[in-house]
């Protein structure tokens, strides 16, 4: 599985890139591999208030729907609309194809996230 050291990870298979007070997020390469071909993405609404752990995104493969959770609390400020027409981008590159950006209300939540190597261990 592919991992990027500069990212933070959740045990529930989301990745986070901290950009100042914003958290850009997507799903990990491991998650896309297990999900199979993504054929549908349901994005959160820009402006939505979310709490860490909320189910905010749904990814659907040919076989099934899977929930994706907010890694941090805050407000959704950007969503990747390119995924609506081309959900398979997530399979092509899970790290280039972010899903949304959350403006964090509590930046300390990032401290609880996993490093690439710790995340890798949870996937074993």
């Amino acid at each position: 599985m592919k991992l990027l050291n500069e990212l933070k990870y959740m045990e529930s298979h989301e990745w986070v890139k901290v950009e100042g007070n914003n958290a850009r997020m997507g799903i990990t390469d491991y998650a896309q591999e297990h999900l199979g071909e993504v054929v549908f993405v349901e994005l959160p609404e820009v402006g939505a208030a979310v709490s860490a752990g909320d189910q905010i995104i749904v990814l659907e493969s040919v076989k099934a729907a899977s929930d994706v959770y907010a890694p941090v609390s805050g407000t959704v400020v950007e969503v990747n609309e390119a995924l609506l027409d081309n959900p398979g981008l997530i399979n092509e590159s899970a790290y280039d194809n972010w899903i949304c950006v959350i403006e964090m209300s509590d930046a300390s939540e990032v401290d609880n996230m996993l490093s690439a190597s710790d995340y890798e261990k949870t996937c074993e």
Partner: protein
Amino acid sequence: MKRTPLYEKHVEQNGKLIDFGGWELPVEYSKITEEHDAVRNAAGLFDVSHMGEITVEGEDAEKFVQHIVTNDISVLNDYQIAYTPMCYADGGIVDDLLVYKINNKKYLLVVNASNTEKDFEWMKSNNQFGDAKIENVSQDYAQLALQGPNAQSILQKLTDKNLSEIEFYHFAENVMIKDINALVSRTGYTGEDGFEIYLASADAPKLWDLLLSEGKGEGLLPAGLGARDTLRFETCLPLYGQEIDKDITPLEAGLGIFVKLAKEEFIGKEALAEQKAEGVKRRIVGFEMVERGIPRGHYEVSADGRIIGHVTTGSFAPTLKKNLGLALVEVEYAKEGTEFDIVIRNKNVKAVAIKKPFYSKKYKK
């Protein structure tokens, strides 16, 4: 979990194994849509050894089979096959099956894997005939399905039997595929031309390898349960537990042409005759999503502010590239062009009833 004789092959080929009604089988080897496309455009090879095989033999074999199924099998020629529901007295479906007529004293019934035991018990308990011996021979048989427009040319390279002689819904026994003895029928569950091949379990791995190496140049891929489901779904072939079940009659499922009420007698006849006379109150309808969303089995269908039914199968359809579904709904809503909503994660998402099947069958008849 139970394993088929091809378990090692699935592991070898990196099949993603899942629990399918107690059987450890591959949902996909590469990608569902790749395998799906291979079957539509070239060929795919499925391990369907989990299917159940039950033989009926004796002087009363024909009478017995006529008694338990809704279709009329008395019109079959030797080596001809009929698709049929098998019903309870109330018209609900025990299972759907293929009846292979070897002669009027010997039939092979092919049933759904997860229903095999139930069907076998049901058949035995309804055998009121003197000379009809019913045997569950599922263990002895492996079954491979070779499906797709290139199926015949691939199989033909491995046998001297002229496969063009096997017509749609017909079969031949003792077909030698290299040195493997098999029963070969022109049947399938994909909407494409193709064959189902029954053989001794011990020979299955060898035939699997033979077919894959012979078919490589013609685009043959091993295909898993995922593609099997999307292929049958696009063609609107019913799946037990979804479009058909103990609580759904063949008339509601749109399988009326396989219910021969003119037949003298069969289990479920009275209930089905009554339902036909009164008209069905619900029906399986095909639909397409108008708004964004993928329908899934068990989602509710809503119209005029109330629930009018539920989705039986829903998926992204790989060939048609649309989000489609089948649903069991009140009959007033089953007409083409009718609009209703699918309740997806507590949101009403618009859909419209469309014609079935979604994908026209490409059978060689």
